[in-house]
């Protein structure tokens, strides 16, 4: 589904150059949930931004379903609008919008009819356990609730890929577990591919596999399986994930 080849990213700040990614290659298959792990500063966010088409200023190639992605802003915006969902560490809900409107927004962008939107939004909000909170604004919701709205927002348009940068870092253990499970459950039924940067071992445990980054390089080709039971439960309905990862 998603393949990145030889990605090199250099930040230039005045005189100093930081090579955040030094040639990373890999792939994520359809329906897979992949954790992107590594110490702080290893380049996780940088790679996610590139895979999410938020950053077009890099060297190397990015493929979606074997199609090379151009680095044009307009085209990438269109792809993001239609096929990519985002979950952020700090929820990033639109303050002026209610929970309902926040979730509805991606559907407006993909010009769905009002009745269709309403039905989808109410249903997904119920699935994330926020029935009855539809008309609250972000400042009236707790962090966990906000992140659940964000999960709903990312998934409501059934994107092919969801990019999540440390989605649970701001949440307490209990809430984090809820959010992780939600992501997995909602994603599994729709064959959504997840790429999740995380420090959170609970998160990593629940992923099909993990990629490790260190100093801008992939350090392990290891595929980390979840225990078979859990794996079965969480991927029910999902296509069997392929156990391959590209060369470093």
């Amino acid at each position, binding site marked *: 589904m998603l393949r990145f080849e030889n990605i090199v990213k250099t930040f230039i700040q005045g005189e100093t150059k930081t090579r955040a990614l030094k040639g990373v290659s890999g792939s994520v298959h359809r329906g897979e949930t992949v954790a992107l792990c590594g110490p702080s500063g290893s380049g996780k966010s940088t790679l996610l931004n590139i895979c999410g088409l*938020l950053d077009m200023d890099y060297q190397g190639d990015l493929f979606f379903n074997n199609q090379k992605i151009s680095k044009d802003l307009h085209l990438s915006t*269109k792809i*993001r*609008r239609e096929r990519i969902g985002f979950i952020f560490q700090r929820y990033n809900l639109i303050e002026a919008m209610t929970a309902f409107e926040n979730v509805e927004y991606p559907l407006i962008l993909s010009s769905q009819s009002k009745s269709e939107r309403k039905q989808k939004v109410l249903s997904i909000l119920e699935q994330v356990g926020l029935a009855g909170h539809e008309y609250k604004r972000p400042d009236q919701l707790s962090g966990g609730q906000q992140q659940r709205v964000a999960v709903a927002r990312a998934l409501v348009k059934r994107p092919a890929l969801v990019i999540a940068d440390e989605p649970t870092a701001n949440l307490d253990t209990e809430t984090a577990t809820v959010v992780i499970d939600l992501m997995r459950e909602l994603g599994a039924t729709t064959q959504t591919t997840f790429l999740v940067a995380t420090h959170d071992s609970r998160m990593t445990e629940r992923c099909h596999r993990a990629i490790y980054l260190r100093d801008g390089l992939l350090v392990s080709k290891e595929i980390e399986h979840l225990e078979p039971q859990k794996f079965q439960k969480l991927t029910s309905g999902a296509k069997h994930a392929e156990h391959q990862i590209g060369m470093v």
Partner: protein
Amino acid sequence: MQSIKLAWYNILRNRRRSFFTILITIVATLVLLAGGGFGLYMYQGLEEESARDTGNLILTRSGYFELEEDYPLQYGISAYKDIQQQYLKDEQIKAVLPHVDFQGLISNGEKTAIFMGKGVEHGEFLAKGPFINFTDGRALSSEVESGSDPEILLASGLAKNLKVGVGDIVTLLSTTTENVMNAMDFKVKGIFSTGVPELEKRMIYTDVTSAQSLLDSDLVSSISIHLFDIKQTADKLEQIQTENTDVEVTPWWVRAFYYRDVKNLFDRIFALLGIIISLIVFLAISNTMGMTVMERTREIGTLAAMGTYRYEITRNFTLEGLMIGLIGTLSGILLTLGLIGLLNFANIEMPPPPGSTQGFPIAINFSLELTLLSSVLLTIICAVAAWLAARSGSRKPIVEALSYV
């Protein structure tokens, strides 16, 4: 609809700031409308005064105002009584007043001076109201007893020069249309002040008939037509010009040099005021919208990440600016209407303007044109300022915007 609701909620989000931004727009609207409305009120007063002074329409032989006459009444109008008869039937016409313009020498028997004279009908004093400021004596009588001297009014400077007062006799000397000198005695009926230094030492008024006999002619220089309603000037101009092809019809504004100068000056002052106010509003809104955009950087980043095009993002901010502009100008208009009502009610007097002895009540004219122009202008300025702020704000790379704290 959705975006309007969103814009409204965003305006409410930072109430204090939005309030001040709106307040600036309100004040700007008020200043433009009240200032402009007061200007219009003054223009109206000046227009009426100018039209009353010269008559709404001035009938002359063509070229009268450009050509210099070789002898008195060379370009005069004949049979003025017929014209008078013809137009007095018109219900919209208040008065038809002939004038004889002439010059010559004036003497008290010992001393001689130059005069500029105007022969007028008694009706002049009725139709035009108090256009002359008498310092002594009274206006010309409607009819002079036969056998007695015709009457004359002297400007105070001239009367002082000749050392004459009301009841004294002066002699006017002028060339007739036949190019011979003629002299007539006049009895001083009144002394007046003009406020204009050049006229103060020269101006006299007498009746049309006496002026004509001094010049030995039955022509008049011009005929002024006074209308009841100044707004009908243009229509009447066309009508009379088509009916009377052998006279030239000049509307009051062509001869209203003072009015035009004043209007020119004030037009420029108001234009400048408009520009300054527009600029202030622009800067104020740019500033607040800039702050708003800055504060919402992460939100802009989020929207952009989700695939919102830049123009869609700027559109939302522009809508906010537009709404602030609309709220501000609408409230400004309401306040101006309130102020107009208050002034009507309170009846506050302005001190007399220079050259005048009477004060006039302060008032503000409400002009739909001015209101539309100002409010559309201010609203557009608000929207443009917001658009510019949002445009530069949404230029930030998404990743940078997302990590903005």
